[in-house]
């Protein structure tokens, strides 16, 4: 097998047994790798009745067919499980350094089941897997635990680590590589925590990549690297990080403010944007493996209440979630909040959004001092957020910590009233910091995303903002963000492209300038799949439909493809003020184009069978 190793390690933490799965090459080709291949393994092996935090639940890490190639943005990795936050299919993507190390150790992925008897970590040393005692690491923050593991296994080792929030099974706990690169969304850290699994550790090793056409890969690296580096988006990312265009997004009505009650604040835009971060706190940039873009920030804050030692700085999502969304322009507080979340191991989007929801509930009197244990939860009070609320959430301690650690949807149900209406989520996953009222295609793509409100599961975010152009599949028109026009048709394409990107484990930033023919050529030269654009798109749709079938088996249906009222009500300021999202029209058209059943929310039997999903069709459409 080329590109991939053809080996997936299946580890049962209860028994300690390790088996090697060797899937047919055809399965790799059909599901691409990464997110798609993990979904296929999940479909075939998961116990769909298992609680996400039970020993029976599966946790999967999966590389893509390009992992390890020395080109920017092709070595990310997918994590798949059942989400403890949403109850549906969870997936998350992470760059960093673990994915190529796993590939060079001889594995495409790891499938974890069972539960270790005591706190443990999984060590991979020259391809050999062993379960080690993590007693000395349990309870430690991610920064310290990562440092301990590096000291134990050398500077060239690399690890995936959970923090106290994961150990406590906070449903939006995350996993970090090198205390910087996150599997952020859907609560993957809690799944690891439920298995008593503190970390994965990879000792440095050397291996070879087997490629279908190594010479062509070499020439593609030579051709594409300068273009990736020179691309405008790459330059913005390099100079100012992922928050580089926050100020510009503010003018587009894209940046949520005070729990999505506003979309426009010039002062906030200027105070929080990436160039301000670079001017005030940036010490150097950092990268994922083999990346020439270097969008990661290393920051230091010398003085003040949020003084911070040199270390990882915030991404755009963190800046907005702990800045504008909470009514704060304090960039130092954002940096500190991001670092605290990283150390505790919590997704900054869900944590920030849940706190922002809590601030609105407190302001409205729906969340009382009695319910917060006397802690005031006020807009922009970042000292309270950083020093008190975040640690309580990670520890699930105190009334407020216990409440907010549930995530916004469950917390709203717990306090009742109409507080669920002003959560900003779909399927229980808090929306990322891109307001669908500033780009109506986002509304549709958030709602039909299997993992919940997500701007990277489909490519709509980039298609609607004009950052990509795919003439080969008919996408060469400009989209008007503030209308529903062509959004359903575009989301059909975006669903396949998003599935391809997440399955090939591409970085949606670094590889934004790649054309579809170039992606086809890269995959074929690496893995020899023999794709053309049509068959690659078909694989993308196959993956998308498979995930819909998985969610159906978890009890999701068409009615779950929705957004909360807060995300659909017309904005009150900025360019999008007063403009209604014609959500139902977009959704109905999308359903028609995707051949989705209007009740089940999955494709027709014929559609599934046409994509080769015959067994899946039998499951969701029993009895011919």
């Amino acid at each position, binding site marked *: 097998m080329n590109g991939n190793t053809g080996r997936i390690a299946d580890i049962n933490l209860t028994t300690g047994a390790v088996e090697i799965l060797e899937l047919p090459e055809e399965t790799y080709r059909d599901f691409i790798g990464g997110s798609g291949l993990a979904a296929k393994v999940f479909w075939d092996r998961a116990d769909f009745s298992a609680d996400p935090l039970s020993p029976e639940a599966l946790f999967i890490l999966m590389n893509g067919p390009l992992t390890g190639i020395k080109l920017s943005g092709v070595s990310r990795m997918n994590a798949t499980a059942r989400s403890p936050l949403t109850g549906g299919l969870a997936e998350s993507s992470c760059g960093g350094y673990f994915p190529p190390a796993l590939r060079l150790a001889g594995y495409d992925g790891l499938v974890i089941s069972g539960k270790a008897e005591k706190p443990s970590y999984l060590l991979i040393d020259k391809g050999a897997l062993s379960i080690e005692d993590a007693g000395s690491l349990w309870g430690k923050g991610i920064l310290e635990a990562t440092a301990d593991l590096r000291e134990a296994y050398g500077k060239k080792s690399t690890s995936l680590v959970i923090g106290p929030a994961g150990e406590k099974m906070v449903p939006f706990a995350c996993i970090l590589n090198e205390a910087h690169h996150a599997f952020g969304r859907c609560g993957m850290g809690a799944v690891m925590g439920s298995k008593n699994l503190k970390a994965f550790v990879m000792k440095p090793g050397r291996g070879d990549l087997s490629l279908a056409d190594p010479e062509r890969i070499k020439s593609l690296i030579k051709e594409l690297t300068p273009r990736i580096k020179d691309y405008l988006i790459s330059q913005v990312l390099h100079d*100012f990080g992922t928050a580089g265009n926050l100020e510009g997004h503010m003018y587009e009505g894209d940046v949520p403010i005070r729990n999505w009650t506003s979309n426009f604040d010039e002062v906030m835009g200027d105070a929080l944007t990436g*160039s301000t971060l670079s001017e005030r706190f940036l010490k150097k940039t950092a990268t994922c493996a083999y990346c020439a873009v270097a969008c990661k920030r290393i920051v230091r804050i010398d003085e003040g209440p949020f003084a911070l030692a040199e270390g990882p700085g915030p991404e755009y999502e963190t800046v907005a979630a702990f800045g504008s969304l909470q009514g704060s322009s304090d960039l130092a507080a954002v940096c500190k909040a991001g670092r605290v979340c990283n150390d505790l191991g919590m997704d900054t989007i869900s944590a920030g959004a849940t706190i922002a929801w809590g601030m609105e509930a407190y302001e409205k009197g729906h969340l009382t001092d009695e319910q917060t244990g006397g802690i005031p939860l006020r807009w922009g009070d970042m000292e309270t957020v950083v020093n008190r609320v975040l640690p309580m959430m990670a520890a699930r301690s105190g009334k407020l910590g216990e409440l907010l650690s549930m995530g916004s949807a469950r917390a709203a149900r717990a306090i009742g009233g109409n507080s669920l209406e002003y959560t900003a989520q779909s399927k229980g996953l808090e929306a990322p910091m891109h307001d669908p009222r500033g780009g109506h295609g986002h509304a549709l793509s958030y709602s039909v995303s299997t993992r919940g409100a997500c701007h990277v599961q489909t490519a709509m975010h980039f298609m609607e903002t*004009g*950052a990509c*152009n795919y003439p080969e599949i008919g996408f060469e028109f*400009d989209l008007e963000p503030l209308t529903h026009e062509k959004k359903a048709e575009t989301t059909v394409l975006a669903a396949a492209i998003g599935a391809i990107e997440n399955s090939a484990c591409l970085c949606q930033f670094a590889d934004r300038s790649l054309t579809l023919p170039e992606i086809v050529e890269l995959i074929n030269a690496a893995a020899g799949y023999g794709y053309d654009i049509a068959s690659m798109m078909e694989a993308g749709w196959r993956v998308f439909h498979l995930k819909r079938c998985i969610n159906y088996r978890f009890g999701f249906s068409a009615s779950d493809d929705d957004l909360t009222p807060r995300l659909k009500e017309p904005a009150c300021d900025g360019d999008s003020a007063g403009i209604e999202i014609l959500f139902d029209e977009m959704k109905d058209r999308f359903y028609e184009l995707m051949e989705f059943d209007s009740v089940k929310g999955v494709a027709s039997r014929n559609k599934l069978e046409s994509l080769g999903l015959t067994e899946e069709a039998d499951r969701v459409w029993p009895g011919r």
Partner: protein
Amino acid sequence: MSQYYKDADDLYKIYGYFLDRVLRDDKIGTKMRKAGIIIKFMYTDPDAEITIDVKNPPAKEGYYGTFYLGPCDLKPDVWSKQPADHSHRFWHGLENPIAGITKGIIKQGGKVTAMLKLLPVIKPAFRLFPVALKEMGLEHLIVLKK
């Protein structure tokens, strides 16, 4: 053949009037000054170039910067090249600049990230461009949103 401009002089007349207003506008001018760059806009059909300097002290009192119609010796920090008609629609708020760059309609060079600092001035300037056309008696060149 340009839809909106007869020749370069015609373009200079319109942009000269527009930029004269922009660089005297307290709100927009202050923000442009903050960007602190020299930017050169190059146009095709008709071929023309305009340089805006908000880096050096303004040549005239009451202005936040200086603009030069036609070739100029100032070394730009960043340049942008596009068809004049595309720029005309852009200043009405009708063209997505990211899409223009993605499709190769707009070419850029130099320290392109410096242009991000101009983002806060673009939206307010969209309102001024049709106003400038109207004041010049060129209502027929105002492009309406479809």
